[in-house]
């Protein structure tokens, strides 16, 4: 499966997406571990970045399917209110 990357994560990976060997269903927590294992450069960022599944925010217990659109990115640039 493909994981889209934005901002700091894109720069760290040197690409706007990474491929991940993954099948079936797993949790967001497991997704983070898969990324860390297969893309060590992203290990630290993968642990604390935001995960989106099919354009919705996802949380550690949520289920990811290998067919979902998955993205990893830092908190958005809110700026001081």
């Amino acid at each position, binding site marked *: 499966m493909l994981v889209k990357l*934005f901002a700091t994560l894109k720069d760290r990976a040197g690409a706007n997406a990474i491929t991940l060997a993954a099948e079936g269903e797993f949790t967001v927590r497991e997704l983070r571990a898969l990324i860390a294992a297969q893309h060590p450069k992203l290990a630290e960022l993968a642990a604390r970045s935001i995960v989106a599944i099919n354009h919705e*925010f996802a949380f550690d217990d949520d289920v990811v399917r290998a067919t979902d659109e998955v993205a990893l990115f830092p908190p958005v*640039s809110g700026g001081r209110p």
Partner: protein
Amino acid sequence: MNEPTIIRITADPIDLNALQRAVTTPRDGAVVLFTGTVRGVTGAERTDKLEYEAYTEMAMAKLQQVADEMRAKFALIHGIALVQRVGEMAIGEPTVAVVVSAGHRGDGAFEAARYGIDRLKQIVPVWKKETRPDGSAWVEGDYLPGRGD
């Protein structure tokens, strides 16, 4: 009733005159426009230019969600425009616009625009890279979305 909702992510300059016209219905006597601009000076820091990047498909969905939330909270507003510019921008240029029309100035357009920009800055996946005299870096926010965001 025809209540325009304009959601846009674009590399083109933001045209406030066009947005004002686009959100104004014949029942409207008040339009509030908020624009975020590229700040050149923040305290002792200087910024030369800014580049915005969006996760476009998700950002469009989240802009629509912000518009829906605005309508749910501010029942008297009519037109809404939420426009995020992406790409490189110079100092002083609008990077984002939140535009709200209503019949009268006390009908919640000010409050809806303020709510809209606050939510947009929390949940719409857009990032900015600042170029300063000492190099460039992504600016990260600190809002972590929760369930329902």
